[in-house]
């Protein structure tokens, strides 16, 4: 058994929401939340408005 990718802890997933304002982690969280696209295969989020 070979772990290729480590699991992500639940608290890590929710960290962008729970992060402290002073730490700057929310800005990083915004990036995390915008790189989740499984439709376009490009890492975008379908979040972009626009035709």
């Amino acid at each position, binding site marked *: *058994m*070979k772990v290729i990718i480590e699991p*992500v802890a639940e608290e890590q997933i929710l*960290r962008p929401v729970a992060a402290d304002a002073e730490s700057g982690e*929310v800005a990083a969280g*915004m990036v995390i939340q915008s790189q*989740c696209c499984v439709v*376009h*295969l490009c890492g975008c989020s379908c979040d972009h408005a626009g*035709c």
Partner: protein
Amino acid sequence: MEQDGWVPSRFNLAFDGPANGSLVIFNTLRGAMVEFDAEESVTMRGAMDSGDAAAIPAALRQGLLDCGILVPTTLDELAIVRARKTTGVADSNRLDVVVMPTIDCNFRCVYCYEKHAGSSMAVPVRDSLVAFLEREIPKFKGVMLHWYGGEPLLEPETVLVVTDAATRVAGAAGATLALQMTTNGYLLTEDVARPLVQAGLREYQVTIDGAREAHDRLRPLGGGDPSFDVVLANTIAVLRSSSEVQVSVRVNFNETNAGDVLPLLDQFPDDVRDRIRFVFEPIFGHCSVRARAAIEDEEISRLLRSWHEHAAAGGYASSVGGVHAGKLVYCYAERENQLVVSYDGAVFKCPVCDFTTEAPVGRLSSDGTIARYDDWTLWMDVPAFDSACEACVFSPLCMGGCRRERLKTGGLGDTCALVPQNVSYVLKQIALQCEDGLIPLLGLTAHHGGEASI
């Protein structure tokens, strides 16, 4: 018996590994990927098929539990996914504001779903928008202000005035402000771009639908004249105006221009390519030119992969994206603290509509508050997941599909079809590259030891 306490996760995706007889399992809830040799694979396939973990040796068990591939029988995995969505929808850290200073446009793209009525954001509405931003931005840690339309650069003064106000308020409040614009690029001349870039607008999305002939056929000016040469020149110029500028080049395609996409990749000079990311979008919706009317899903997926690989090889920032565990919502329009403000102060949730027949969900008041209508409640009350999503192994990656589609049609629409093919492709690429000891690959970042995403 102790073994009775665990079962295979409902969110395991299994596929043949790169080595002979090996098996790879990816858990969509936790984002872990594990490869099993041929002997272990027999055991794991048996457990997956039967849903019974009793035959899994103790030596493997703890590792599988750590990766979420095996879970306690008492664990409600669906509850975790639902909780993520609830958290994401209610996220009070981030405000997303999409502003449409006009719904008019100087283009007449053949597939556009908007009606481009003459329209302009009047000064009182603009002042109300500034008042809204002054009230709201200090409440949030992160704010995204996205310019959209119509063509927002038909109203450059509004863009500058509101952007400057948002920057001032965010700076005073210590909020992180992300500024973006979706433009057709025709009016993004050096004179227009300079003050925008200086104001902090450095992320643009410009659509170019392939090489010149294809683009000009799909995206002509209102009078029918071509637009390709000007859009390309403006895009290159804005990228060269500042090393901080980044452009997403969106390429909408159907069967009529799919063959013209790769030649577009030759059009950009080397010095700007690393700040261009391509977004290839099958023309969607219910119009006659939609991609799925003439191209099979499997072929769309193959085209996407091929184009992204060519873009990456050509030095663009584009790459085949990763598969990211931990998404909280399907798209930003699901979130409570998100809204689309139209030129007349009407408020919407989703920007994909024609803005004339669509009923707004609220209205911007002169004091900067938002009067929410019943349609806002209807939008937010759409169930977090469709019943089909709750049975779908991909739901932690997708988070439930398009809320607008589910509200309007009661169904999930057709984007679901691409998800399994695309995810499978990316996962197999990861497994293959990891076999060669090559992480990251194709722009993927493989974080170990508790980082946020794969």
